[in-house]
């Protein structure tokens, strides 16, 4: 699985670097660093709802599906990163 954090200008201003740092820490703490690749992406085309995350490589994507194996997550902040991960991403890892 890949998590792409938008670092386009708009998301950057809303704190995408903080979100990246938060996710680095979360992935480590949940011991899933080998399963999830964290990436940055220049603009995911959802500037109004940033910080936007794109989750790639999942079997049954839900929540605003944008492709066969990917979906978007909106309004992510460093403060809600933990709940976004545990509630919406971790269940898809099948662990």
């Amino acid at each position: 699985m890949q998590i792409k954090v938008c670092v386009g200008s708009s998301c950057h201003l809303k704190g995408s670097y903080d979100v990246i740092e938060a996710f680095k820490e979360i992935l480590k703490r949940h011991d899933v660093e080998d399963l999830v690749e964290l990436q940055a992406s220049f603009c995911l085309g959802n500037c109004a709802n940033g910080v936007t995350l794109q989750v790639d490589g999942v079997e049954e994507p839900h929540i605003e599906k944008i492709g066969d194996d990917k979906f978007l997550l909106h309004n992510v902040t460093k403060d809600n990163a933990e709940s976004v991960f545990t509630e919406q991403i971790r269940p898809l890892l099948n662990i």
Partner: protein
Amino acid sequence: MPQNNRLFDTTVQYIKYQVLKEVIRRAYEGGLEDAYLEIPKIIAPGPKPSVRCCIYKERAIMQDRIKMAMGGHKDNENPVEVMYTACDECPADGIYVTPACRGCMLHACKDACPKDAITIIDHHAVVDKSKCIECGKCTKACPYSAIILQKRPCMVACKVKAISIDDDKKAQIDNNKCISCGACVYKCPFGAITDKSLILDIIDILKKSEENKKYHVYAVIAPAIVGQCRSARIEQVVSAIKKLGFYQVVEAALGADITLYHEANEWAEKKILTTSCCPSFVAFVEKNFPDLVKYISHSVSPMVETAKLIKRSDPNAKVIFIGPCASKKMEFKLEKTQGMIDSVMSFEELQAFLDARGIDDTQCEDSELDNASFYGRIFAKSGGIAQGVNDVAKQMGVEGLKTCQMNGIDECRAALMRLKLNRATENFFEGMACDGGCINGPLSITHGPRNVADVDKYGEAAKEKTIDNSVKLYKLSLENEKK
């Protein structure tokens, strides 16, 4: 003669812009195959010539300009080229005593001459060309301003003496000496030397992306862009660029942050370093100080560093650099840039592109532009890298750095000579070929003191005050590349 509508500093730029605009319009709306026949008549309607001997010569020159707008001579790797018909064969006779010479008693010219080259014959100053070194002291000494120094503006502008006069009295560029800085492009009063445009390649890349569905086309903009586009704000220019069909606009200043990080580290290791951001400066060192090539930083330029970040996160992306620089059109083809940049557009070409597509940037909504730090953004002015590397080194706990700011090729030559002779007191050399830095690049729309203030303001506006987050982003992209 078409009048400059105050968009550009010079009428020469304005004519180049008109040709580009018409070529771009035809690339979209059709009629490119008739460009050579029709465009000259539109821009030089006649029947009277405005500058040259006849309207037919003017139109022939216009055809040369169209060729340059469509890519120029492909077999010549230099992005800067002389248009043979347009070169007006300016006099280059050196010191010339005009009829204003009164044959006075004072003989200030004779006294001022360090080489004893002036004698007074029949109440008139006469210059012995075999002795004259063209220092110009007599021209300043004459109380009647009767002596002038006739030099070709292109040859004066060229600090590496790459321009000579061929058998037909036309200017010719020696590619072995030329560093593609483009100084002659901006200085030739007849607009006879120009940069070759890649705009048709860029339009092709944009069209084939099928509105960014096949692949994404990113624009990487040089920080010197602030203050370039009329009275539009940079946030509006970003929207305007997207309207041209670009997927996203990213600041080259982001790559500049990473370049600073590399340079500070590399200096800590080598203890003597020159910058490598300016491709004309790098070419200048390679061609004139081969012994000092070992000191050139191995870091790639901010343009390439930014493109690397983009292509690591979006491997099918195409990246177009937009800047003020002629030599970037040479740099992007070099092996060391690893094909990261797909093409290069100048600020002049950007203006022509926007106007050809009917996009008024002053009427566009704002788009955010904020990827880089304060330091990356002030790269555009002379002294910007020196200031950045000083602060970054301090933050990294690296000590002993002494920066030298080399503003323009003459200062580069002087400082590198000291370095070569082991007489330099500094150990970090910031080299920029253009006087004042990139903000005075030859393909800028305007060249003025206002641009420095604009760059400073743009730097201050950055959310990131240090390069830390840019470096983190770089490290993250590297980790993924290794996986």
